């Protein structure tokens, strides 16, 4: 290392040496603060993971079964499937790998100021757009300004709001006619072009995870000449060109003639086939080799796919889950009833039955073992007698009658609900299930009194608790409020030091077990299916799929 290390790394390095910091978290921290990934791996005495599976062969087609959506506006994508289409043509500034470590992409290297307010991004100098122009800082600045523009409507705004944007009253109204705060860059010089290949992000407050945020899936780098639109023939710095696209049917990507700056691609064509939402039709297509991959597996098809000799199941542990959460209204206004719900649940059985064991049992506090600040406060075992006693104490000696709202997709959720409902029945919690189509569920998810809601993976435990359980948060679907919890959470968010955060996290987790509104039955592994002839592919925890790494071993 010839360059000077960021002060936080030096401190973290000491903590790591003292055994206070886990390897994974040190790795993440070091890389976020500008140490190259291979160097960071060697600092903690690990070998960087390799994807290589023999020498890649050229040629062939890969077909994947995935929904083919409208992909015309990359910066406002709200579905992973859309991003998984466009990412074959467009690149990101950074890339977070399957090991949760963020690496360079169009940004070759980055540096953070000691106060974490200023980030300097150095762009690669050898990248050209397919149509021939050189990729420069102007392109990157244009994209960053566009996603942060209020009028674009990108979800990147939510991610970087505190760092670089300020709120003001621009006279805007929301759909119900209520006044809405607009946002703008806090300073005219917030996104600064230093030279043709260097950008500075001058923030208003500290932010550690800028490189991770740059990989937020709508932050695809488009050519300014396309004006933020994307479609057949659109320019890109990626390995493929979109040559055909029909929503609901299929997309076709052809490999560029010119070699890709990042290596690959190996296959000639990549096709996305829309097979609908029916999981069984997807497996039929896989069985008769009409597709080589399925974007995401379903529990109902797993037993079949395991029997298909030419197909392999790819899976990875994540912080994805779904939580059964209550509103603080009768009978759930009494925390003993909420506790009873947790004691009545057998998480191991839910995991086994609903996910066929793919994942880990949950611990009801919504902080996953994959989160760096996770504190192991012990596993709450099913205890029917205790659940009954708690119900009786709360004034329900004969049990309670409730209804839970759930949705049919993904299929494991309905299985989990059915299993829990049977378990609860033993404790005297008689629960009916109301299944709504997904569209209807998402229209009401914060309003239903008792519901089972999907939560995606978030890299930090504090992020998920802040989104879902802080008093008044937009996504606090449980309408839950606990002053002590809010105070501790704010405290935890203030610590960069993972050990300090973990100590507070243990308290937060205990509050969740004591007073919290939710049952968190499992951490699910995400999984999908691919033909064994496809090499070079590993499943990403967010199921991001890059065709440029794939090759076919016929």
């Amino acid at each position: 290392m010839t360059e000077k290390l960021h002060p936080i790394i030096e401190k973290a390095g000491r903590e790591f040496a003292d055994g206070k910091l886990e390897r994974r978290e040190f790795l993440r921290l070091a890389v976020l603060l500008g140490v190259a990934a291979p160097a960071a791996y060697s600092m903690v005495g690990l070998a960087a993971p390799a994807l290589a599976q023999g020498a890649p062969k050229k040629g062939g087609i890969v077909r994947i079964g995935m929904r083919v959506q409208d992909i015309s506006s990359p910066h406002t994508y709200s579905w992973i499937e859309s991003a998984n289409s466009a990412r074959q043509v467009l690149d990101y500034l950074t890339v977070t790998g399957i090991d949760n470590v963020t690496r360079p992409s169009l940004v070759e290297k980055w540096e953070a100021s000691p106060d974490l307010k200023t980030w300097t991004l150095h762009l690669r100098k050898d990248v050209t757009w397919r149509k021939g122009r050189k990729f420069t800082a102007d392109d990157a600045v244009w994209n960053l300004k566009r996603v942060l523009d209020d009028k674009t409507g990108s979800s990147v705004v939510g991610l970087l709001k505190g760092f670089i944007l300020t709120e003001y009253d621009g006279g805007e109204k929301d759909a119900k006619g209520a006044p809405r705060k607009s946002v703008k860059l806090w300073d005219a010089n917030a996104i600064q072009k230093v030279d043709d290949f260097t950008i500075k992000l001058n923030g208003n407050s500290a932010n550690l995870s800028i490189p991770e945020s740059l990989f937020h899936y709508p932050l695809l780098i488009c050519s300014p000449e396309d004006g933020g639109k994307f479609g057949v023939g659109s320019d890109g710095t990626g390995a493929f060109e979109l040559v055909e696209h029909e929503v609901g049917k299929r997309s076709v990507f052809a490999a560029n003639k010119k070699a890709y700056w990042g290596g690959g691609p190996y296959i000639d064509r990549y096709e996305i086939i829309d097979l609908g939402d029916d999981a069984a039709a997807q497996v039929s297509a896989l069985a008769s080799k009409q597709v080589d991959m399925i974007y995401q597996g379903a529990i109902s098809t797993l037993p079949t796919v395991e029997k298909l000799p030419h197909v392999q199941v790819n899976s990875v542990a994540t912080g994805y889950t779904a939580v059964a959460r209550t509103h603080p209204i009768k009978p759930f206004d009494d925390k003993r009833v909420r506790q009873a719900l947790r004691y009545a649940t057998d998480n191991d059985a839910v995991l086994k039955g609903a996910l066929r064991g793919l994942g880990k049992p949950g611990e009801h506090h919504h902080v996953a073992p994959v989160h760096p600040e996770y504190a192991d406060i012990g596993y709450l075992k099913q205890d029917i007698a205790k659940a009954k006693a708690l119900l009786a104490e709360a004034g329900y000696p004969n049990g309670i009658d409730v209804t839970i709202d759930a949705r049919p997709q993904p299929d494991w959720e309905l299985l989990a609900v059915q299993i829990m409902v049977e378990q609860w029945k033993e404790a005297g919690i008689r629960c009916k299930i109301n299944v709504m189509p997904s569209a209807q569920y998402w229209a009401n998810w914060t309003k239903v009194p008792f519901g089972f809601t999907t939560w995606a993976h978030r890299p930090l435990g504090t992020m998920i608790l802040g989104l879902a359980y802080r008093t008044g948060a937009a996504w606090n679907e449980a309408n839950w409020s606990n002053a002590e919890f809010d105070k501790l959470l704010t405290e935890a968010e203030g610590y960069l030091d993972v050990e300090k955060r973990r100590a507070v996290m243990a308290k937060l987790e205990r509050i969740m077990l004591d007073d919290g509104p939710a049952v968190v039955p499992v951490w699910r592994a995400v999984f999908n299916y691919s033909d064994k002839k496809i090499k070079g592919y590993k499943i990403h925890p967010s199921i991001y799929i890059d065709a440029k790494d794939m090759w076919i071993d016929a």
Partner: protein
Amino acid sequence: MTEIIHDIGRPRAAPGLGLAGDAHVGLLRQVLNILTRSPLATVGASILLAWSLLALLAPWVSPYPPNRIDVALVADPYPSAAHWLGVDHLGRDILSRLIWGARTVLTVAPIAVLGAVALGVFLGLVSGYRGGFIDTVIMRIGDTLLAFPKIILYLIIIAKFGASAFNIIAVITLSSAPIIARIVRGVTLDVKNRDYVAAARMRGESALFIMFVEILPNARGPLIVDFFLRLGYTTIAIGVLGFLGVGLPPPDPDWGGMVKEAYGMIFVWPHMTIIPALAISSLVIGANFLATGLREASLDG
């Protein structure tokens, strides 16, 4: 869904829908008579009776609670001494779910059909007997409903109001009533000017009495045959809704839903799909056989 065709066919397109004979002979005796004469009707009635008995006695004959989950059993889900028809993907006993599921389908389908008959009979009688403006309005509304392809009507309504037993019953009632009204209206128009109806009117009987006591019995034959045919189609319709994922909500067993839940696994655990599919088929076959037998016997006079 053949029901669509069946519904749209005019009365004249369905030949010989009539139990012949004297309206005054006891209905039960007439039915028994036909059953003993037609082997097809006997087989059909036996199947329906067997399922009805199982449904009625579900709490006593079902070997396990239908929703009891035992995940450990999924390792070997095939039929065994402990589970005669095996267990499903959550380790629930398939036989018990079939028996309790029979309860569901044999409640929902007959109620839906009876609802349709009640509504259809009333509207048909009023329409045919009163004639004029009322007739035009009722038939116009009926035609509009019939113009909807059924499955589309089901999808629109259930997607809006949610899938519950009540909504399924309502939508089937609503979509089947117009065709029954047509049958009854046809019969009413045919007999309302006969002597005995005129006589009743002379006696000063109320319109309601004349419609239900004097006219309705003439439509009894076609209605009975239609009831069993419709029962079969309704069973299929409930199965189809379950299969499309807009059927009765879990966890209570619903045959169509059982097929839906398990059919992704047909290649490894075929019994989970095939057994409920066979159950639906058998019930529909029973209803169809009975209807065919009744019609045949009535044609013989």
